[in-house]
Each structure stands twice: as structure tokens, then as C-alpha cells.
């Protein structure tokens, strides 16, 4: 057993604290116009940032704060320190469009304001269990901005669980997460063996036995991590049309919907319930993730190309040598906009701003997200799915298909479209509490 213990008092709560159910929150994107003002804002905000010391208090609302590379520059971080950050982070998510495969409709030139222009400097996210708590914690955050013109709010996006905790395409999401060794958090069944802390938090040994390169100086990098922030708009109309076009009864449609994701709408995995949904199973965190693919080697329960099998292949035999444990990432999905509407069918429905903003957290978030995009989302070679792409977050090309293995002959669904369109994103650094104080204490 490893005796590595993660310093919970230093890392931000959001890294370990699970998303409450139901959840309510807001993302606030800010620009630093003046270095001193930016640092003063951090100084005032930091006492309100929860550490992970009481990670189990998911009932308490909490704030997290992330800073982009442009933000670090704007705060006056010294040059040699800036240079010690990973290249992908320094370039910013928009400039990594090639590596991320963000082209066509997902191209940064099509993104919503204020994304993609190097103006998003600081991201503050509030998480809570109720609408009241959300308002309360958000006003605490806003108070710290009072009297400043040197920091401006670029955008605010409320998010929250929809009725039944469903995402805009009508599914319960965010079930599977990696377990982190030394975090003190008991792994839930099915999460797999705890992964070395260094994969998720800087300054600890990773799966290879050594710590990942850490930004300098030590106090800035240690106990920090990176976040990939990606805002997707869900084309609910297109999704519903697709289901209707490829299933003539409600049962057929729901089965198809489950085959795309790998779970029924309730969250019950196909692997444990291959034929019908099971709401009690879906709602039970002790059971809804407790499976592997050892009895589904041909993809007849969960298709190889389905979303959850791509995002975490578990013991699936992949076509290429892969260590799945070094590609895990903590995912916090935050749903925004009007709730899932099973009767939305028109193109106008697709234009409604509703979707999910994903936060992907890892000590090497940039490398992992770019890997996932290239290898596991926008390609199917790794899992024997040829050119096919992830049906939920993949960027589909014309003529795209989705294969559902079954007896006696596989079913290949045509006319699959891009159901989640990328509207913006950025890479953030999530500093430790000491690092936040160090940043606030910088001088010109």
C-alpha cells in the first residue's frame, strides 16, 4: 500500500469534492485589465476558496478559481515561471484546435464570445446544492469584485441539474470517475484501482513512478492541477430526430439511445442491464458503475464505439498497446439552459442555447484531452471501430455511421450527426491555496 498522502489542505476542493445532487452553480469568466487589480481580487477571493480538507462536505457550497495562461501573464507572473508551464497550456485551447480536432463547426473562429481570443483570464465556478446556496456563494464572489474596474466580468453562465438530474440529451451523467490514491476518498465500486495521485495533482508521483513536470517555482506548481473547460451546445432537435428516424417504437428508440451512450437514461449501464432500463440501478452509486467488459468481448451489450466505453475502455481488449490508467480524467459536467425536451424536433430547437460545460481535471489535462480527442473520440481505430467517432461528443463527418454489434448481423446506423457542438473553451491552471497567495503577493 502506498503511504503517499495528498495534502488536502492545499488543493482546491473541487478536485475531490463530488458534484452534489441536485447541483446548482455559475461559471464566471473574468478579464484582468490591470495586474494589481487582478492580484487584489485574488487576495480577496482566496479566503473563500475551499480546500479539499473537508471534501465530504459536498452539502456546503464552494468556489473554485482557475487562471489561464493569458491570465497568468496579465497578473504579472515572471517570464521564467511562465515558460515553465506546458506548451499546450501556454498556447491556449483555441490555438490547439489542430491537436484537439476542433475544426469545421467546432472551429474556434465560430466560438461564442468571449472564448478563443485570449481574453478569458480567470474562471470562477460556484457549486452548490440549492438555488439559494448558489445565490449566496455567488454574491460572496461578486463582493470581492466590488470597487474594482481592473477586473471585468466577461460572461456568466448559470448551470444546474435539470429535473431528474438529466443532461440536455436526457441522460443522467457524470457517473464514472477515477479514484485517486492517497486522497482519502473511498473508491466506489467500478471506478477501478486508485490511480497514482500525480496523474491528477502536481507534485506527486504519477503512474510511471515519477512526478509530472511541474510549473515553477515550487510553491506555484505544487498541489495545483489543470482544467480543460469545454462548452458544448446540445442539438436536442437533431438528436430526437435521429432517434425517431432510426427507431419506430419508443422501445427501439430508447434502446438506440442507450446503445449510443452505453447507459440507459437513468444511468443504468447496458453491461448490467442489457435489455431494459433499471431506475433503481441507475440511481445507486454503489451499483451503477460496478462492472467491467469481461463478459462483453464482442460489444453485444455495450457497443465498442459507445460513449462510456470510449471514455473508459476498462478491460476492453484494445487494438493497440494502451495503459488506460494514464488516460483517466476527472470530469465535472455542468448542464446549462432549458431542460431536456423529448419533443424537441426542429432546427430551431437546435439553436436554443442549452448544453453542457465540461470541466476536465488532471495534472496533465491538456495532454489527456488532446489524446482523448484524437484517439478515443474522433477516431475508432483503438477499439476496432474504424473511422467511427464518439456518437455523443464526436465531430461527425458527412456519411458517418455508428455500429451496433448484434446477432446475427451487426446493425450500422447511418445519418449520425454532431449532437454536441463546441461553442468555446479554455485551459486553466487550478493553483493550490498557497499558490493563490503567492500570485496575489506578486509585485510589478
Amino acid at each position, binding site marked *: 500500500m502506498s503511504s503517499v498522502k495528498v495534502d488536502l489542505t492545499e488543493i482546491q476542493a473541487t478536485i475531490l469534492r463530488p458534484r452534489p445532487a441536485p447541483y446548482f452553480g455559475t461559471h464566471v469568466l473574468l478579464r484582468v485589465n490591470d495586474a494589481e487589480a487582478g492580484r487584489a481580487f485574488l487576495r480577496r477571493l482566496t479566503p473563500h476558496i475551499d480546500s479539499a480538507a473537508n471534501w465530504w462536505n459536498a452539502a456546503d457550497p464552494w468556489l473554485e478559481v482557475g487562471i489561464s495562461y493569458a491570465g497568468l501573464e496579465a497578473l504579472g507572473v515572471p517570464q521564467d515561471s511562465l515558460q515553465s508551464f506546458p506548451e499546450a497550456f501556454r498556447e491556449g485551447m483555441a490555438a490547439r484546435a489542430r491537436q484537439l480536432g476542433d475544426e469545421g463547426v467546432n472551429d474556434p473562429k465560430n466560438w461564442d464570445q468571449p472564448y478563443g481570443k485570449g481574453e478569458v483570464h480567470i474562471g470562477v465556478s460556484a457549486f452548490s446544492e440549492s438555488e439559494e446556496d448558489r445565490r449566496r456563494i455567488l454574491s460572496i464572489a461578486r463582493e470581492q469584485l466590488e470597487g474594482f474596474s481592473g477586473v471585468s466580468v466577461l460572461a456568466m453562465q448559470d448551470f444546474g441539474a435539470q429535473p431528474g438530474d438529466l443532461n440536455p440529451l436526457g441522460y443522467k451523467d457524470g457517473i464514472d470517475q477515477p479514484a485517486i490514491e492517497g486522497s482519502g476518498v473511498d473508491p466506489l465500486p467500478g471506478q477501478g484501482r486508485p490511480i497514482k495521485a500525480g496523474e491528477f495533482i502536481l507534485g506527486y508521483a504519477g503512474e510511471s513512478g*515519477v512526478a509530472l513536470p511541474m510549473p515553477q517555482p515550487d510553491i506555484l506548481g505544487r498541489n495545483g492541477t489543470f482544467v480543460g473547460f469545454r462548452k458544448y451546445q446540445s442539438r436536442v432537435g437533431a438528436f430526437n430526430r435521429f432517434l425517431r428516424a432510426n427507431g419506430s417504437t419508443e422501445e427501439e428508440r430508447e434502446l438506440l439511445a442507450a446503445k449510443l451512450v452505453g447507459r440507459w437514461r437513468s444511468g443504468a449501464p447496458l453491461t448490467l442491464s442489457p435489455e431494459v432500463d433499471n431506475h433503481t440501478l441507475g440511481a445507486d452509486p454503489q451499483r451503477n458503475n460496478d462492472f467491467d467488459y469481461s463478459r462483453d468481448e464482442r460489444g453485444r451489450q455495450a457497443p465498442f464505439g459507445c460513449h462510456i466505453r470510449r471514455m473508459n475502455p476498462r478491460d476492453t481488449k484494445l487494438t493497440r498497446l494502451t495503459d488506460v490508467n494514464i488516460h483517466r480524467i476527472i470530469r465535472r459536467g455542468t448542464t446549462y439552459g432549458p431542460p431536456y425536451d423529448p419533443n424537441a424536433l426542429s432546427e430551431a430547437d437546435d439553436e436554443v442555447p442549452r448544453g453542457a460545460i465540461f470541466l476536465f481535471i488532471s495534472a496533465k489535462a491538456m495532454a489527456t484531452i488532446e489524446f482523448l480527442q484524437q484517439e478515443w473520440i474522433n477516431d475508432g481505430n483503438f477499439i476496432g471501430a474504424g473511422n467511427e467517432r464518439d456518437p455523443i461528443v464526436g465531430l461527425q463527418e458527412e456519411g458517418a455511421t455508428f455500429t451496433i454489434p448484434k446477432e446475427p448481423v451487426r446493425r450500422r446506423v447511418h445519418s449520425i450527426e454532431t449532437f454536441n457542438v463546441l461553442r468555446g473553451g479554455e485551459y486553466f491552471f487550478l493553483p493550490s491555496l498557497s499558490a493563490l497567495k503567492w500570485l496575489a503577493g506578486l509585485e510589478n
Partner: protein
Amino acid sequence: MFLAPLGAKERHISLLWSEAVQLGNVSINISPLCGEGSIYVEDFGNTTLAHRLRDQDQTDRKEKRVAMATQTQIATEPKSDAVVEQKIQKLKELYADAPELGKAALENGLANIKQELAAISTTAGKQSAGRVGARQGKVSELTAILKITKDGAKRLRGLLEIMEGNFKGADVVGTLHDMRFVFLDNDTKLLFATAYDGEWDAYIDDFVTKIPTSMDLVFCNLEGWPGIHDPNIKDWLVKHQITADAWYVASPNLTVAETRRLERVGKALDEFLDKISA
């Protein structure tokens, strides 16, 4: 805006498309919602997702045709005569002071060269495999020249001989099309070259955790090898790798996994056809 009733023939669609393109500034969408087999043409102007997706469809279709051209060698975007002439001119200049053999080859082969140049599609050029290396479609190349340590040559040769001159163990990697080890300059240098699927960077971390001993066993015989666990191992590899200037791949869409799958499918199909023709 016009609606053209359409037979389900691919031919009709491409005909209408090229006609519409000449009108300039239009986008095409074959919408399943309009009912089977109709096509409508619409002006740009709006910036809804729907319109962007339609634009994307159009670009996709164009790119797909070009991509397919590299496989089937049918010219879909043929180089214009002027461009070909320009290239021939440049070739003649380049070869003006070539050895007689070369000059003669250019003269005698001019007709063939013209044909080949005319057939090159605009986007069939060399792509990048990422940080270093060239790529065609899904297949990338890695070429490195590495110094062998003083006693490394004997050891490495011996190892390769024990492996029967073949690294079948590399099957486990799953993405290597080929791999060659060539000793140069009196066993002081090693040419290491491989064709593999995907991006350069993607799986090196996986080698570190999954096959560290295999990597160190072979590469410890090279000067300066820091060990696969070195945090800067990728930088070291980049330093010794030289991107190919030209990279030809016969089937750029065939990954190792896909080739194996097609082999199985082909075999099963043959057996099936045997059965039904019996």
C-alpha cells in the same frame, strides 16, 4: 432558392453541385427533411449552427473526394495546365546541370512526368505527424539516426539475431506497420525507421508504463539513451528524429487494426461465398 427534384443517383447530385458552384456564393444541403431526393440551394448570410453545419457538409464532401483521390488515383482537382507548365519549367532549371543521364531521363520521360503532375491533387501533400515526422492519411513515419555505443553494436546485432531478424513482439503495440534496424558507417550508427498509425506523441507515455523493459533493452545500446523513464524522453527522441521530406503511402487509410479486420472479413466472405456457390 430553388428546389430540384432529384433521382437518387449520385451522378445527379454532383452535376447539380458543380452547376450551383458556378453561381458563386451558395451552399448546398441535401436535407432528409425535405423528403427523399430533393436538394436546395441557399445563400450564405445567416450564422446559425444549422448553416455552419451545412457549410461543414460541403467542405467535408469536397475534402472527402480529394482524400479518396489519393487512394484511387483519380484526379478530382487536376492541376491546371499553367501550373503543370510552371512545374516543368522549374524541373528543367533544376536539371540543367544534372548528369547527362538525368538530363536524358527528363527529356525522354517528359510526357509521363506531365501526366503525373497533372494528376496530383492539391491536398495530397505531406502532412505532419505532430511534433516531428511526416504523415499521409493515418500512417506516419519515424526516421532516426542514432550513434551506437562502443560495445553496443555487437550486443544489438546479437539481440536482433536472437529475435530472428524480426520483432514479432512488436505485435503487442498494435500500430507498427513496419520497423527497420540498419547498421551504418562500420556499425557506429543505427538507422531506425518505422511506419506507424496516428500521431507521434500519443502513445509514448503508454510505452513507458507498459513496455519499459523492451524499450531499454534495445535502446540502451545507443549513445546518450536516458532510459525510457526519463521525464524528457520525448525531447530526446525528437532530437534524433529527422522528418522525411517525402512520404509515400499506398493505402493511407489502412491502419494496422483495420488491415487485420479486413483480412478477417475477406476470409469470412470467401468462406461464405464458397458455401453459397457450392
